[in-house]
């Protein structure tokens, strides 16, 4: 899932200087699960912003709302009236949700309430870790189901660098070395011979390094959507 981290309330309040009608809008999907932008976080942020407004006489009017998936236009359309009624929208969704609102309502000012941080998984209550870089070419079948692209600080492809020590990464001693984890996994599976396979250099053009990516599935297209100011799938 997409993992986000809440911005400081003071930082968000600073962005909102001069605004009056503020919509704080969260998302019930990834950011709700990582407890950064769901219903509870929307309530908390709205309440904290109103503390500032009441104390400093800013006269903010706060509206709260949480959509099912803020990255999908049909869900955002459900709060059309709330968006149109606001001077400023603080999105507690990830950057995708925030940009969906911004693209659909180009005349509206959208402010990010959180920092979209990485693609990761919940490890335990309150702990999330990065496990995918969305590199565009998954190879985890060659590495025991462990992604060295995201889990190794150097995205090493053919074994560890020289800094691996006692199972830990030289970049951060609190982080397991991805290649030790891969070795252990392949050993457990009786496939250690795979460690000696030479893996071709990665084609980074399929990752973000090749520029902004887009997928068009012709089998799914009904008709190109269009309306002024909005992105169109050609």
């Amino acid at each position, binding site marked *: 899932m997409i993992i986000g981290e809440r911005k400081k*309330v003071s930082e968000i309040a600073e962005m909102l200087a001069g605004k009056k009608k503020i919509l704080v809008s969260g998302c019930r999907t990834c950011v709700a699960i990582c407890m950064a932008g769901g219903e509870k976080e929307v*309530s*908390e942020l709205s*309440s904290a912003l109103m*503390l500032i407004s009441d*104390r400093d006489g800013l006269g903010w009017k706060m509206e709260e709302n949480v959509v099912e998936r803020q990255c999908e236009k049909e869900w955002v359309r459900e709060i059309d009236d709330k968006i149109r009624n606001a001077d400023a929208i603080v999105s507690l969704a990830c950057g995708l949700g925030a940009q969906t609102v911004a693209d659909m309502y180009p005349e509206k000012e959208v402010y990010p309430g959180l920092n979209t941080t990485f693609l990761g998984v919940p490890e335990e209550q*309150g702990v999330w870790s990065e496990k995918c870089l969305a590199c565009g070419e998954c190879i985890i079948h060659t590495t025991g189901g462990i992604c060295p692209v995201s889990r190794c600080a150097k995205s090493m492809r053919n074994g560890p660098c020289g800094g691996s020590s006692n199972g830990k990464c030289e970049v951060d001693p609190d982080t397991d070395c991805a290649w030790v984890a891969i070795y252990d996994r392949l050993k457990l599976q009786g496939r250690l011979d795979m460690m000696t396979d030479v893996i071709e250099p990665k084609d980074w053009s399929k990752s973000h390094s090749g520029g902004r990516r887009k997928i068009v599935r012709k089998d799914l297209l009904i008709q190109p959507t269009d309306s002024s100011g909005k992105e169109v799938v050609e």
Partner: protein
Amino acid sequence: MSSKLKILAYVCENHAVSAIRAACSSGESLPDSIQIVELPCTGRVETVHLLEAIRGGADGVVVIGCLEENCYHDAGPKLARGRVERIKEVLQDISIEPERVEMINVASVSGARIMLRLREFEKKLAEMPASPFKGAIK
């Protein structure tokens, strides 16, 4: 000064309420400033409840829960503690005294201790500058 204070106490109806009752039946009384909201478990207290109490004019908010290892619902006081800590950070960030929010854990037999902690909390609040939200209580 202290008689004008308002403290909202979110209190677990299990050990924490028993501790307060035990203290009261042995002759102690709750400070006048304290208004109690009983909950099935302090795990029910959300961060917004703490913020809204301050915004509503409470000088302080205290969450009184069972000892962490004694929770009937397993993790209630641990969750509550995390939320209290979170709101302390938020208050600090927006320049409101984080000491206005506290968590107290008690065993049902610790009536005297809970009263002592509440009086200490009341004293600390009385020494602070008036809350900017004073008088907001409806």
